[in-house]
């Protein structure tokens, strides 16, 4: 392991962006990183709210119309190398909001997330389970560590 990836693995900063889901996924993600039970901080994964400091972007929610632009801006503000995790059924395929009517397109929902920004890891669930969030974060790590 090079010095660069060694030091990168010591401080992985996760930024959570909320794009219009129901709040369930967000609380579970904050819970899995901060709370004493799951405590991702022991694996040197920290929560941040500043895109310029972040390494991993966790996106939840189906991306509503108003959130499309901010999401792109935040993605561009994160320095390379970066990884994106889409968490929850909403972020993966639009969730109930997009699909409950079958094929009728929805004007409110611009998602899923991979239509808007490239996604590296996908965490399923409605709401995501904290264990899955941790394994999602682990799955996204190689991209960060192996980058030049």
């Amino acid at each position, binding site marked *: 392991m090079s010095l660069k990836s060694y030091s990168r693995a010591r401080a992985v900063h996760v930024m959570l962006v*909320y794009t219009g889901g129901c709040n369930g996924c967000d609380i579970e993600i904050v819970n899995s990183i901060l*709370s004493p039970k799951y405590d991702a901080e022991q694996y040197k994964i920290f929560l941040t709210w500043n895109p310029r400091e972040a390494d991993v972007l966790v996106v939840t929610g189906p991306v509503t119309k108003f959130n499309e632009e901010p999401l792109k801006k935040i993605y561009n503000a994160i320095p390379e190398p970066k990884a994106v995790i889409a968490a929850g059924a909403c972020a993966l395929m639009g969730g109930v909001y997009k699909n409950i009517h079958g094929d009728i397109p929805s004007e*409110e929902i611009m998602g899923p997330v991979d239509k808007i920004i490239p996604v590296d890891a996908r965490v399923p669930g409605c709401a995501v389970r904290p264990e899955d969030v941790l394994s999602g974060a682990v799955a996204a790590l190689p991209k960060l560590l192996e980058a030049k």
Partner: protein
Amino acid sequence: MDGKKKSSGQNVIETEITMGPVHPAALEPYRVRLFVEDEIVKDAEITVGVNHRGIERIMEGLPVEKANSLTEKICGICSNVHIWNSVMVAEKGLEIEIPERASYIRVIMGELERLHSHLLYLAHGNEVLGHETFAMRIFYIRETVMELLRMIGGNRVQYGVSIIGGVRPRCELDEMRIQKIKEGMDFIEEKVAEFADRFVSDPMVMSRITGVCPIPKKEALRLAVSGPTLRATGVDMDLRRDMECYDPFDFDVITLEGGDVKANLLMRVLEIPESVKIIRQAIKNLPGGPITDRTWEMQDTGVIKSYVEAARGRLYHSYRLEDDRVRGSIVRTPSMSNIGAMQYACIGHHITDAQLGIVQCDPCFTCTDRAIQIIKL
């Protein structure tokens, strides 16, 4: 907003501070505009609408069972109470009597959810205060509630417990589950009492929150505040007393005076033992029998309305049924009526208290973002 709080100095320049919709300090997307003079907030404006998904529009024309599941996705904090109330609308319209056991299980779920919401509020409030140790302690207690919810509902957030006519068969409470709930309640009561002791005897925290951002009783009534935020201002109002399913239980409605951050935080601390009390009574007197009544028949109804007391305030659902489909659905969530209080609480205080003033009203902007019409008072 308030005539008495107009600026006094002539040469002080009013600055506008805008936060959001996506901002590091706010977890949920909403927009706050603070008009500041000399670090004192003169006016505040909160705008929602960023995560508008049009739930009522999506619900239009859905089969009623599907629409009920969708209401659960309005809010990830109080998901159970949404499906509960939405199911209750249909039950009222179709005149379905649910079995007693089902009603007890619903109450247990509702109170467990209240516990988790209140604990989340306390953790969030302490984090905004800057007291992470307390926040971590509360998150630790909250994990027990989440495990109980996962045990009964099968998921940590969206449980889908209520269906028209009762509760889902997988949410039946057997001996093992009842035992687990009992143990969980003992743990929560003990830990919360410990926390409350530490909390009120901490002079630093107390001096930081006493008298900050108060909402007077009169203003709270004028702004149509609801839930624990209203009770913290001294108004004795709790819809649980009027709900049929709470009739067998004995509990106190707690009111405090002042409506400041301290009263709001203590309100939640004091409501937790009451919820524990209700759950204990429910598992002790849990009646036998079936948990689902499947004998009802669908028919067209007029507009049906239902109110319940959610963890954060009064929740209103209404729709009518037409050919098995949901029509004209309206949902009003607690935070909708509390937005006025959030704006009011910030005004006249230091800008560093503004975030506390907003958080003290227990905001949940996700559920607030639906088709709304604001009528000026």
